[in-house]
């Protein structure tokens, strides 16, 4: 194997370049670390070297971090501990060099890569937007194990370092300069030359350390620090609901070691790293990381041609979804035309888009001039003007097949190749829309989730007639919009709603059994769902939910029959959160259970969280097994990605089917059998596919 580190000496400056051979990225695996150890020893003995510059030979990457595969492979606590200690010892060698050391950052500088840079005396970076710097380890359920929890707070102070480490925040070169993570920025093309020049100045002693303007009270006094830690903890608990140990543990490490003896601090960091690396949560988050990376670029068809970026987009139907989709498209600088036959609706869509831009401005994600430019890319009209030249038209009219058919028939008449017609329906048959179109091969489903700007998933629905090229073009479009796409067969509810509806329905059945809605919601949240199923029904809208439930009932029969209480709620005219009245009553930020509905049930049953969770989740596993059997999607990971990205299903469980595997298929089948018998509920009977899996000892991922 060729070397990954190359040291050359130019005019007495040591330039150490990292280049993992035959790989796109530089990764600090064990081999690279060991090699680094030898080189550093070498450098320390070469007296002619006046300063050491650590750089990368790759175009876009400095060092992407430690090797995630190695971390994933750790099975022994000691192994984890040793890895961290060993890495630290090597980075310590950099710190201990008598000569100035400078990290020259030209691209992604993450995790272990940034920890290496932190071990250097100075850090310089390029202005390029390829530069991304941060310690994202907590997102993988671990902590920065090469001294990051020690060196970053030392460099920046607590107030600045904590949010970076605890949220795994990744920043641009400009913000890195602003907050002190790097010392200088240079042009990308002259970076190395400028870095050498910078080293000369360091040697002359003419470079001064920037003083960190740290708030004295918060940084230096025990009371102030305690306050900082308290607030950080509160923030973590709010965001993670206590379900992710890594940020809390990391906070503990910093709290116990900040400003104290560094050897002890490093050791404690390694110990906690070892604990975290072995947790199932960390392993699951790593699985999720890999799934996410894969679904960002995986190919779904055999199509080999290149597909173009969408240059102009049309949206037909100016509801909340239409407005949200238009906003997202314009956000990516693609001009978009919205058509509706109601002037009022057009105004509403513009208002919806403006609202999202206003929020982005408030959160400082966008500047005023950017919002104005992007918002201006949305235009509206009552006629077909502007649709003919659109290469992607998204239909978002009301969920009524009669109207949809008219829209598709019409759109296919006024447009030519290569325009793709995509329906944003959440449950109706895309095949039927294709059949009325002049060109069914260019008709596809493109199901966004609400709110469009924030939900990372889209389902792309492929009918029997959809061409591979259409699928690839739609995937490209979805990815250009920053979404993760899964391709799904045209069955009712597609994938996500087909799984989610039984879950919400099951919650309603539990209510009918007498379990309180708060207990149900609480159990689901404890399990790791972003909100409880009953609250979710209110969010979706009882009218909408009932409509979809009805469609699924029609398609799948008895097992999807909507619970009575849903019908009662609908008949009472309750709409959910949008009208302030649903299963809960909403007043401002407060919600209280709607007693009116509870009265109609008239019995009370207390059930353990565990039992509730099983009933809610197992039924989804059961339906997911059917989806695989029917090949709605080909792989279990598509279901896991879909559920996590589309519904927020507990990310730390790595998705529904990883959860089922961990739980044991046999146990799930047993549980379902028991519930279906004791409740006399056929819908809970395990499907053949699942039973067979259990009998043959198979898992979803085996």
């Amino acid at each position: 194997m060729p070397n990954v580190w190359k040291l050359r000496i130019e005019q007495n400056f040591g330039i150490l370049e990292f280049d993992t051979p035959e790989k796109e990225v530089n990764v600090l695996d064990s081999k690279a670390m060991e090699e680094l150890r030898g080189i550093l020893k070498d450098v320390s003995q070469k007296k002619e070297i006046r300063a050491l510059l650590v750089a990368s030979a790759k175009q876009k990457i400095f060092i992407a971090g430690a090797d995630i595969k190695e971390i994933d492979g750790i099975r022994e606590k000691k192994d984890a501990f040793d890895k961290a200690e060993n890495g630290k010892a090597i980075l310590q060698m950099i710190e201990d060099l008598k000569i100035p050391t400078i990290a020259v950052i030209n691209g992604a500088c993450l995790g272990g890569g940034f920890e290496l840079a932190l071990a250097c005396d100075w850090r310089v970076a390029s202005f390029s937007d390829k530069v991304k710097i941060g310690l994202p380890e907590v997102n993988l359920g671990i902590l920065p194990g090469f001294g990051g929890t020690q060196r970053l707070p030392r460099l920046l102070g607590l107030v600045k370092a904590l949010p970076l480490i605890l949220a795994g925040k990744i920043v641009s070169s400009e913000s890195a300069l602003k907050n002190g993570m790097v010392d200088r920025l240079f042009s990308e093309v002259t970076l190395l030359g400028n870095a050498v020049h910078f080293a000369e100045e360091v040697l002359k002693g003419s470079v001064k350390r920037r003083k960190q303007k740290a708030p004295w009270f918060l940084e230096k006094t025990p009371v102030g620090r305690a306050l900082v830690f308290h607030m950080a903890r509160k923030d973590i608990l709010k965001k993670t609901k206590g379900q992710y140990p890594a940020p809390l543990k990391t906070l503990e490490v910093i709290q116990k070691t900040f400003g104290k003896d560094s050897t002890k601090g490093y050791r404690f960091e390694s110990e906690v790293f070892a604990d975290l690396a072995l947790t199932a949560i960390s392993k699951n988050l790593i699985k999720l990381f890999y799934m996410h990376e894969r679904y960002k670029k995986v190919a779904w068809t055999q199509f080999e041609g290149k597909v173009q970026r969408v240059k102009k987009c049309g949206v037909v139907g100016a509801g909340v979804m239409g407005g949200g989709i238009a906003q997202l498209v314009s956000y990516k600088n693609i001009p978009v035309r919205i058509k509706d036959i109601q002037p009022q609706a057009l105004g509403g869509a513009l208002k919806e888009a403006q609202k999202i831009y206003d929020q982005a401005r408030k959160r400082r994600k966008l500047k005023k001039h950017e919002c104005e430019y992007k918002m201006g890319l949305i235009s509206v009209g009552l006629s077909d003007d502007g649709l003919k030249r659109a290469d992607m038209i998204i239909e978002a009219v009301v969920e009524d097949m009669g109207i949809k058919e008219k829209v598709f028939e019409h759109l296919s008449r006024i447009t030519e190749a290569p325009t793709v017609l995509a329906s944003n329906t959440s449950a109706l048959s895309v095949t039927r829309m294709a059949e009325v179109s002049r060109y069914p091969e260019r008709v596809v489903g493109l199901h966004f989730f609400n709110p469009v700007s924030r939900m990372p998933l889209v389902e792309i629905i492929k009918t029997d007639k959809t061409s591979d090229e259409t699928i690839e073009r739609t995937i490209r479009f979805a990815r250009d919009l920053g979404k993760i796409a899964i391709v799904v067969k045209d069955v009712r509810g597609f994938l996500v709603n087909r799984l989610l509806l039984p879950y919400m329905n099951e919650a309603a059945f539990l209510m009918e059994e007498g379990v309180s809605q708060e207990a149900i919601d609480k159990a689901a949240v404890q399990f790791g769902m972003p909100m409880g199923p009953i609250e979710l029904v209110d969010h979706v809208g009882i009218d909408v939910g009932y409509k979809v439930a009805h469609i699924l009932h029609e398609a799948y029969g008895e097992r999807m029959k909507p619970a009575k209480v849903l019908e009662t709620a609908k008949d009472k005219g309750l709409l959910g959160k949008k009208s302030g009245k649903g299963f809960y009553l909403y007043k401002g930020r407060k919600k209280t259970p709607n007693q009116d509905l509870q009265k109609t049930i008239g019995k009370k049953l207390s059930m353990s969280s565990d039992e509730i969770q099983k009933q809610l989740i197992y039924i989804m596993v059961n339906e997911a097994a059917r989806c695989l059997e029917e090949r709605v999607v080909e792989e279990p990971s598509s279901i896991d990605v879909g559920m996590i990205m589309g519904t927020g299903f507990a990310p730390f469980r790595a998705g529904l089917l990883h959860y089922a595997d961990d739980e044991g298929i046999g146990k799930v089948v047993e549980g379902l059998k028991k519930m279906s018998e004791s409740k006399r509920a056929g819908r809970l009977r395990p499907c053949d596919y699942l039973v067979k899996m259990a009998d043959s000892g198979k898992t979803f991922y085996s």
Partner: protein
Amino acid sequence: MGRMAIVEGVRTPFIKSWTLFNDIPAQRLGAWCIQELIQKTEIDPTLVDEVILGCVGEPVEAANVSRVASLYGGIPEEKPAYTINRNCASGFEAVTSAYEKIKLGRDSVVLAGGTESMSNAPFIFSKETGNLLLQLQKAKSLGARLNVISKFRFKHFAPIPALKLALTDPVCGLGMGQTAEVLAKEFGISREDQDAFALRSHQKAIEAKERLKEEIMPVFVPPKYKEMIQEDNGPREKQSMQALAKLKPAFDRKSGTVTAGNSSQITDGACVLLVMDEDKAKSMGYEILGTVREYAYTGLDPSRMGLGPVFAIEKVLRLASLKLQDMEIVEINEAFAVQVLACLEAISSAVFAKKYLPGSGPLGKINTDILNVNGGGIALGHPVGTSGARLILTCLKEMKRRSLHRGLVSLCVGGGQGGAIILER
């Protein structure tokens, strides 16, 4: 090289300044039109060679407002754009500049028009105040700073409306309204005649409301997007001679006859036309609105700028070898009622012709039945940089409705100029 064709055009509703479009800058008004025109004609924006917009009071924050509107409107960044200023004829000049470029073969597809937000004309400080502020910025010590501060007087903080400066002629020193008074006196045109003309303008505009929608794009006003607006808000349904008579003279308090009621309104609005080489337009399958037969600009005494059309019409007819009687429809911009009335009189007057148009003699009478048939600047408003383009669009759409062959469009220009275009279809 073929003729220049005007393929299509759109304009925003013309909105009285400081009302609905108060917060919309000129670059956005222009962008709306560009964007809508692209949708309406379904032209591929990469085919557009250039964008030329007229604007008189360019927004301080959008130098070369045409470029900003072009990018906002979705024209690719590699396509150039420039802003043009021939005062009230700026929208005209944009179209005739495009004509020249297309005739020369430099461009074949151009978006030409005008945009103006008179609501957003800035308030400025005097030069003296500017000097003091500069000194204050340069002052280093506290003492020096206090010294400069002590020089400030109350008057230094009195802002000057830029709009007022823009509507005053720096050569003859008269405001535009005062030049109208000059014509009222010269031609002896009464207050009643002026008011009657103004009233007709409103009546015609009200009657034309539905027709005008053919050229007006619907607009939702940000940030509330409350309602769809597709009507000019200048025309008054209840305008009457009595109401007009109540108004005080605006420019000559004692003996004047020109009032706010018989002058054009201060208005915000934009208008953009898609113009192309005629052959190209036809090869792309466009049904064109019309072509430019000939155009002309002339200069005259700035204090009588309102007579500009007389001279420009004489010239354009001469260049085209046509007679006034050949024109089946006429638009003369209504800067002031008296100014249009003066033009009508001058153009048919042997005395006037003898003195000022020695080469041609009187041009003949303009039939008022075919003049400004959908109302004019008095009712619709006169966003200065835009009006030229609006007149061309309105005239062409009317020619289409009436199946006419030839039309004449003209306007007077602050600073003492006139412009005229002969349109054909």
